[in-house]
């Protein structure tokens, strides 16, 4: 019989739409203003902490609920005002050992959450927050690696008693010169055996010379390791900022994307994320004076003026620091107390044992912009090295010690913060920033929602007036389509709704009826050509389907290319557009057919309301 679906097919369609509804449903529940409290720097949220926070807040405010879960406290509050007040109280109570972040906590009912349904995550343009794109500057890192190559080769050749004339740093690699062919051959065999990822080439242009360059794989490895290390460090710095759902990810070979929802203080965030200050400890070369510097030593400027000659060899790098706190010494000078990891502890204790009663210098290293840009438009950074203190090692140092010689308590604080969060492996630069204030975010949601509602209402009205009975059918499909888009968006992890995304939904609403228009116009033509209503429906759907597919697949191509283009604001649009195209074909073809079949299928109909 024409226009009847078997029961299972009808049920399957109904089930699909129902699932879409269920997954879209969590968006109907307004989220709570909430506080999220977690430990930083090794401190953990204990049950006692939880009790403390809870009782303090309960004394002063009305709270909806407070739970301790996965080492985090989540406090739900009634409104923005009490949320801010609660943050103030909690920060006061807990100090800087804990991070207190503002958040919006979802209120999805348990039975929906149990199915895995959760509300849409909102993009930064809708919830407010900061987006940073950072680029890791590899120049310095590569130079340091080459310097290390020089030192390594010298040590290796000396150990094996292979005499060389010179080993020097070049812009692209390291140049090794020898006095005779035999030594060169020996050295080549030795080094090739030891450093598989380095290319050693005997030069034709210069006699008895080898050039060592890093292989592309090694370069990639160094870069990747530096970016990964930077990401780890940025994550820990972000934790210090107190952000509820931060997102730090690598993008491409040398870029890092940082998204901090809910944060407004961009200046502080940038200062903390981009800071590259680190420390190095060197021994002072007492034999040398700044006028004549022997090999292996270098002149450093002192912060309070003057200069000092230090051995180039680094006793300890800032990477071994596990904790740092600021304070005052006995004579009221600002100081930073440092704790090291086991490896760092061994290193410093080893080195200090051999150097008791000798002076050790603390070098403060920072990267500052020069204001100039290179040919790629990148800011050129300058490495600034300053000796902040020279102190005589009185006893063997262990895993914790302190440094003095800082300008002010504020500097001690910020240095300790940076040391705690770790030193960046390579300096970073912010190459793109997008910050949206909370008021604008809220406004954007309202604007987007209004546009969707108005656009939808206009189209629904038009379809109803124009196609009457069948207009109702297509309106059911259109409503189902919007729900399905939201449902699918909520299902996909990592997909977030943005303002352009909302524009994509609006556009889909306008274009989705196209499929129905195609079908309905066909049915009208078939009716005009004298077919019976049942036949007209049957042929109308059949004839329109291939056109609908062709038309939508090409639009989908455009949407997918947009998606792969990938820039933030466009991606959101591409996602909703792509999802919308797919769901709209389903609702406009399958859902309407099901409804039409239930409505007129198998019945005697003389006239169609179309």
């Amino acid at each position, binding site marked *: 019989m024409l226009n009847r679906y078997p029961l299972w097919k009808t049920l399957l369609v109904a089930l699909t739409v129902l699932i879409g509804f269920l997954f879209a449903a969590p968006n109907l529940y307004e989220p709570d203003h909430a506080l999220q409290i977690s430990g930083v720097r090794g401190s953990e949220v204990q049950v006692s902490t939880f009790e403390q926070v809870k009782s303090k807040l309960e004394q002063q405010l009305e709270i909806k609920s407070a739970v301790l879960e996965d080492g985090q406290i989540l406090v739900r509050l009634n409104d923005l005002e009490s949320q801010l007040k609660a943050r103030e109280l909690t920060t006061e109570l807990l100090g800087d050992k804990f991070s207190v972040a503002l958040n919006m906590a979802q209120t999805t009912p348990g039975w929906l959450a149990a199915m895995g349904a959760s509300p849409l995550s909102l993009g930064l343009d809708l919830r407010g927050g900061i987006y940073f794109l950072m680029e890791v500057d590899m120049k310095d890192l590569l130079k340091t690696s080459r310097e290390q190559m020089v030192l390594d080769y010298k040590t290796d050749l000396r150990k094996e008693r292979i005499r060389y004339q010179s080993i020097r740093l070049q812009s692209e690699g390291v140049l090794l010169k020898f006095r005779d062919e035999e030594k060169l051959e020996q050295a080549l065999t030795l080094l090739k055996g030891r450093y598989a990822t380095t290319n050693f080439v005997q030069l034709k242009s210069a006699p008895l010379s080898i050039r060592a360059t890093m292989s592309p794989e090694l370069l990639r490895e160094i870069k990747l390791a530096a970016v990964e290390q930077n990401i780890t460090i940025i994550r820990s710095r972000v934790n210090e900022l107190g952000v509820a759902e931060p997102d730090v990810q690598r993008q491409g070979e040398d870029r890092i994307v940082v998204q901090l929802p809910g944060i407004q203080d961009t200046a502080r965030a940038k200062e903390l994320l981009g800071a590259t200050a680190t420390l190095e400890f060197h021994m002072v070369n007492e034999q040398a004076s700044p006028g004549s510097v022997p090999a292996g030593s270098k002149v450093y400027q002192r912060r309070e003026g003057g200069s000092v000659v230090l051995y180039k060899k680094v006793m300890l790098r800032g990477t071994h620091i596990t904790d740092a706190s600021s304070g005052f010494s006995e004579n009221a000078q600002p100081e930073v107390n440092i704790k090291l990891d086991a490896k760092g502890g061994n290193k410093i204790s080893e080195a200090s044992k051999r150097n008791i009663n000798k002076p050790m210098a603390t070098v403060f290293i920072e990267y500052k912009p020069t204001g100039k840009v290179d040919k790629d438009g990148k800011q050129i950074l300058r490495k600034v090295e300053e000796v902040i203190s020279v102190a005589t090692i009185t006893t063997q140092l262990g895993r914790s010690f302190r440094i003095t010689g800082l300008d002010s308590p504020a500097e001690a604080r910020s240095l300790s913060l940076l040391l705690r969060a770790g030193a960046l492996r390579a300096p970073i630069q912010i190459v793109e920033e997008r910050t949206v204030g909370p008021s604008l975010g809220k406004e954007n949601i309202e604007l987007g929602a209004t546009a969707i509602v108005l656009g939808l209402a*206009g189209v629904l009205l038009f379809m109803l007036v124009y196609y009457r009975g069948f207009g109702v059918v297509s309106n059911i499909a259109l409503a189902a389509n919007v729900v399905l888009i939201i449902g699918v968006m909520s299902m996909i992890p990592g997909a977030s709704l943005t303002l352009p995304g909302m524009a994509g939904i609006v556009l889909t609403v306008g274009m989705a009826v196209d499929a129905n228009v195609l079908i309905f116009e066909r049915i009208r033509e078939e009716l005009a050509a004298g077919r019976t209503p049942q036949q007209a429906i049957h042929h109308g759907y059949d004839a329109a389907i291939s056109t609908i597919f062709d038309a939508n697949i090409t639009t989908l191509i455009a949407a997918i290319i947009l998606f792969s283009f990938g820039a933030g604001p466009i991606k959101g649009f591409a996602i909703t557009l792509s999802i919308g195209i797919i769901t709209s074909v389903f609702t406009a073809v399958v859902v309407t057919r099901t409804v039409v079949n239930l409505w007129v299928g198998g019945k005697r109909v003389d006239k169609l309301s179309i």
Partner: protein
Amino acid sequence: MFKIFKSESAINFMGLRKLAIVFSVIMMSLSVFSVFTNKLNLGLDFTGGTVIEVGFAQDADLQKVREVLAVNGFDDAVVQNFGSPRDVLVRLAPRDDVKAETIGSQVLDTLNEQLGQQVSMRRIEFVGPKVGDELTEKGGLAMLAALICILIYVAMRFEWRFALGAVIALAHDVFITIGLFSFLQLEFDLTVLAAILAVIGYSLNDTIVVSDRIRENFRKLRTGTPSEVINISLTQTMSRTLITSLTTIIVLLALFFKGGALIHGFATALLFGVFIGTYSSVYVASSVALSLGITKEDLMPVEVEKEGEEHDDMMP
């Protein structure tokens, strides 16, 4: 029943073909000319620089904002209202002398301190010059990639003449929309680029529906010149073309008037693109296919020869 478009007999669309070609060529030339002379008013995404949107409690005094900024070293700042008289947009070109990423907060602090009025931060966007160049390059590539992929798909599904017609129609829409943005000096940012790609999708949608019907009619109708067949097909699909354009325009008007300032350029590009795309699918795509000499034979399905097939034609 309501009918948006009534016609018992086929309308001679192709009769106006020559006129349409002249019109399209003129419009495209003007667009290209405008892009070369007026250039595009490229947005921050492509030029790099900093944009700061601030909100005032009352209507903002733009002149005063400009003065305060000029005094404090931001004399190249472009200051304008954005969306409402209380919202102000400050745009700064990329500069070399200050650490670029701190400009946003510097401007904000300056305004807060010196205007004697509480200013709230609504939005800060900073795009480095390198990222801007990359986005420009990627945007152009995306547009090109979209056209090529679509060319391939349509050529596979239809016939090369239709494919070429469709892609020429799309290029036509893209050129003229960009031309409009250049002529009116509207800001061309990433959302506008997205809109133009959506216009490509929309216009293609239209073109395919029309081409599909032309193919069907070539196969079905036994008589008629290619031009007549195309006219019949365009007449048959005309009400669908108009209705879909209408519903799309309804939602775009909602976006244009209620979507807010951030989405304004997007809605403008799409609104214009829908008009031009509807026109191009009727006139450009079909005329090109016709000019390239499309005939009935070209669109006959390639069939595997079966026994007795030659008799099929005689069946009723």
